[in-house]
């Protein structure tokens, strides 16, 4: 198998969510001396971007997104330590969690996959994350962005509780706050004082990149 065939195979098998084959091709590529970053940026990420595009067009649905994400996650487990060893830098650190009282995480997990595919380091705190846990995790990990996810109208108010906790801990200005989830709107995000909102996984990646670039530009300008 040629290197080109490895990349093509990785792209196509990720697209259809064939986890075992994606892992096998990853191993074969590494065995041939291919750079982990090549496998990631020339095959896995473009494939996941295509998955996102098909989802936006309505050609893919959540199961297809999840199965592709699982395939990519399997390869990432193998590549992540190698990428760290080779000094590939992430574009930013994203701390993520579903708010207290809410166990829904399908959307959050899709966002995580897309963020990681886009080059973010993602730290996922899981579900039912209390405000104090967000605070301690921000202190520990120093993320660029923290994301609060909620699926229920009854748990959305935790966004405000979390932001209040960040303010009380003196962390609010250190971190970009993004919110999302099925019932969330831009208006609601504005009302609770979040910095950003996006309606789906692909849009979250774009918004996160924009917000991060904006913040870095401000820092660079000495603001």
């Amino acid at each position, binding site marked *: 198998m040629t290197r080109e065939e490895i990349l093509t195979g990785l792209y196509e098998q990720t697209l259809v969510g064939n986890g075992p084959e994606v892992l096998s091709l990853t191993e074969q590529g590494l065995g041939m001396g291919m750079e982990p970053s090549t496998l990631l940026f020339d095959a896995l990420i473009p494939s996941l971007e295509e998955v996102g595009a098909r989802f936006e067009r309505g050609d893919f649905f*959540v*199961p297809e997104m*999840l*199965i592709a994400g*699982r395939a990519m996650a399997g390869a990432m487990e193998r590549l992540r330590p190698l990428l760290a060893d080779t000094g590939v830098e992430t574009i930013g650190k994203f701390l993520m969690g579903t708010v207290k*009282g809410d*166990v829904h995480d399908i959307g959050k*997990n899709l966002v995580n996959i897309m963020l990681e595919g886009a080059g973010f380091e993602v730290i996922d705190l899981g579900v039912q994350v209390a405000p104090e846990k967000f605070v301690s995790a921000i202190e520990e990990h120093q993320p660029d962005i923290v994301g609060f996810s909620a699926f229920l109208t*009854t748990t959305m108010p935790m966004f405000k509780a979390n932001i209040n906790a960040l303010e009380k801990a003196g962390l609010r200005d250190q971190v970009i706050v993004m919110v999302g989830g*099925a019932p969330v709107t831009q208006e609601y995000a504005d009302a609770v004082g979040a910095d950003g909102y996006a309606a789906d996984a692909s849009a979250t990646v774009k918004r996160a990149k924009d917000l991060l670039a904006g913040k870095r530009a401000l820092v660079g300008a000495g603001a």
Partner: protein
Amino acid sequence: MPTSTTASSSNSPSPAEDLSTQEPSTREPSAQDPRASRVAALACGAIAIHIADIARRRGWPVDIHPLPPLLHNHPHRIAPEVEAHLGGLAAAYGKVVVAYADCGTYGALDEVCDRWGIARLQGLHCYDLFAGAERIEEWLADQPGTFFLTDFLVKSFDRTVWRELGLDRYPELRDDYFRHFTQVIWLAQDPAGELREEAERVAARLGLPLTVISTGDGALESALALLLAC
């Protein structure tokens, strides 16, 4: 096609009429049309059969116009779909009601109802309509990972849940969807033998313990009575 609670179903609107759209409140029903003295209930297909049973039992002059229950898996489509049907019904019937709760539309259905001056069933989901919103809140506060079933969901689980989540094609995704769920509560309208076995089978497929709460349809009946009185 509508489900009439009386023998007047021959006067029901055609599908084409159902799908017509128009601006709110632009037409009045004809006095000669028997439907002018009846109520059209534009209902979620997941509860339409219960509403028909209740209306028949109570002798209410209600024609049920069910919409596909699978809309629930795409809740952003519910409000537009409801609105697409309101024109024809409002032109034909003396009164129209929307037999949906919010159902994951997050206010979009209320906007449609407000625009047309039409009331809907109260509550966030049909679970509220069977068990009461307070009890649902209590269960969720106690165990946020509660997966609710109704008789409809028990009967149609393979089609409306399993297949829609892609679990027929990708059974390995089950834990991706349900790993944080801790129990199944079946809000049973009719906790009879065969359905109970089916509910147990559903819970087993999800790998979760089952609790059966017999609700009947009394709370839905009360909610419907309030809706018709609006």
